[in-house]
């Protein structure tokens, strides 16, 4: 059993975890930085404890402080949310050494999936297709790999995530300069400058599969399409992946389950794939061993509370859901409302929301920690909230999204809402099945 849960995160996901934990009768203790002491999740958790000053290296990323706070609060489990320490094996180890449960996969899984090359090797073992390419320790090795994959190619940080340390290279003569940049970025962001080389698919879609496992058994909860991205960060996500033949979707889902079973995966995870938009061939990219930002679209079509499933598995319970019990229904779309100015290169725009009128209505869900007077501090990522719509069909979901976005009104800082209004009016989006180059082709 989990009686008292420590939440080592902030923002909308902290609130999301508090909601499910409260419903399950679990007491919640939230870690907050000094900058978040007055936040909505801090008010709504049963208890909030300060773990350090605003900058995350001194608070949300300080393993010792976070674990110490969880122990002192008398908690018996830690939910890491997403980002921050959620996929950090050293953190999971510290939590378990302190005698608490870590709400996430086994430490060995975190280690295997945290290194993109190791993850790739595990996927190959499980029989999943991967993109041509691989590790390259030296400049010469990078050139040798490039000769195999051809151009365009992608340089990626081995320890990467969030698009940092990632570079697209179109021509051989640009390879050296791009390699320098990718290594410098990887070093700055992850403390590890190692990169690897991968073929770049010209018209690729980003499709992922939600999996749930209990260490022995594993099932999938269908696909999500997250192709609309800027700087390799997602902006719009939908479930199931639209405009894709059923057989292609099932092939990807089965591959994800094979991987989860091969790993003896425990908890909620997401297998990400690159899908060729023209012939639907697919390649494994990575497995995110945590809850995803975009998990609500899966919840909308399956009716499964993924945070509840995470907590149940963390308590040591076997999955009670079977593959046959998961019957996706309708179509769901999520848009991320970020404190960013889409007309100024997505420049971050922290500040205080003087007004925060979020949409409401049938098939509308809003996950946000920003209410009237809510603050977006300059220390963390820019996500203010997620607008999720669900409809019987994709067409109905798109219609509801249009209505909801028209109603959404936030004052105090520029947000990505106007960009989303343009996205959903684009005929390519309305048709469905766009590739990752969508934003470049978007009209003003």
């Amino acid at each position: 059993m989990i009686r008292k849960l420590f939440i080592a995160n902030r923002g909308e996901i902290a609130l999301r975890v508090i909601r499910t934990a409260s419903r399950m009768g679990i007491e919640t203790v939230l870690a907050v930085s000094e900058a978040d002491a007055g936040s909505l999740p801090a008010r709504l958790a049963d208890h909030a404890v300060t773990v350090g000053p605003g900058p995350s290296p001194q608070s949300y990323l300080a393993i010792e402080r976070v674990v110490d706070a969880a122990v002192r609060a008398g908690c018996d489990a830690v939910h890491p949310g997403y980002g921050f320490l959620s996929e950090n094996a050293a953190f999971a180890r510290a939590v378990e050494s302190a005698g608490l449960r870590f709400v996430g996969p086994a430490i060995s899984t975190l280690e295997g999936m945290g290194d993109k090359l190791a993850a790739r090797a595990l996927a190959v073992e499980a029989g999943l297709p991967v993109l041509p390419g691989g590790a390259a320790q030296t400049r010469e090795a990078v050139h040798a790999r490039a000769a195999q994959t051809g151009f365009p190619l992608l340089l990626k940080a081995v320890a990467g995530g969030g698009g940092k340390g990632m570079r697209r290279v179109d021509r051989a003569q640009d390879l050296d300069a791009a390699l320098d940049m990718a290594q410098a970025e990887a070093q700055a962001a992850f403390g590890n400058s190692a990169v690897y080389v991968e073929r770049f698919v010209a018209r690729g879609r980003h499709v992922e599969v939600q999996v749930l496992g209990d260490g022995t058994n594993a099932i999938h909860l269908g696909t999500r399409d997250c192709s609309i991205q800027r700087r390799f960060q997602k902006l719009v996500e939908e479930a199931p992946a639209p405009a894709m033949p059923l057989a292609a979707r099932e092939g990807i889902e089965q591959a994800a389950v094979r991987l989860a079973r091969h790993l003896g995966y425990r908890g909620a995870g997401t297998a990400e794939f690159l899908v060729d938009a023209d012939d639907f061939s697919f390649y494994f990219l990575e497995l995110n061993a945590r809850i995803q930002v975009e998990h609500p679209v899966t919840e909308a079509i399956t009716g499964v509370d993924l945070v509840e499933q995470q907590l149940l598995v963390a308590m040591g319970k076997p999955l009670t859901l079977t593959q046959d019990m998961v019957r996706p229904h309708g179509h769901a779309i999520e848009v991320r409302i970020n404190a960013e100015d889409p007309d100024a290169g997505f420049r971050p725009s922290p500040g205080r929301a003087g007004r925060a009128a979020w949409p409401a209505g049938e098939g509308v869900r809003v996950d946000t920690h920003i209410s009237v007077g809510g603050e977006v501090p300059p220390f963390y990522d820019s996500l203010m909230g997620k607008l999720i719509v669900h409809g019987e069909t994709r067409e109905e979901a798109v219609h509801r999204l249009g209505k909801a976005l028209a109603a959404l009104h936030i004052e105090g800082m520029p947000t990505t809402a106007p960009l989303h209004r343009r996205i959903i009016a684009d005929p390519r989006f309305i048709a469905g099945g766009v590739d990752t180059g969508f934003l470049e082709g978007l009209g003003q």
Partner: protein
Amino acid sequence: MTEDLPLSHEDIAEIAAILEKSGYRELDLATRRFRLRVGKADGPQGEPAITQEWQWAGAMGEAATEAGDAVAADPDAICSPLPGTFYHAPQPGAPPFVRPGDAVGPETVIGIVETMKLMNPVHAGRSGKVAEILVPDGTLVPKGAALVRLS
């Protein structure tokens, strides 16, 4: 700190549906803990759309951080284009972008403001000579804070 959370998203969707079908324009509910307004807004093609606005007790009060946006009175100052942490150098230990006495042009980078994990270069915006670095390295600055003074 509360025992339970008010209103799930399903509850809100139901309230919105009731309001949508009613002749009323707004529901305004205030408790000791929160105020919730669910109202009709103008949607596309004249279709009414519904909004939810939450205000939590004590949330608006102290507008401490809004003291930011301190518009620098000094016309010779280069100001921060956004709030964040101001750094003199590209990396810890690296030489600073500019020193007093340096000549700068409009495109010269005089420092970096880190906001939401992104490094934003600050350009001088005009030509001149650096007279003084006004803010110590690693300081959290509001939008519009004077960073460097030119002579």
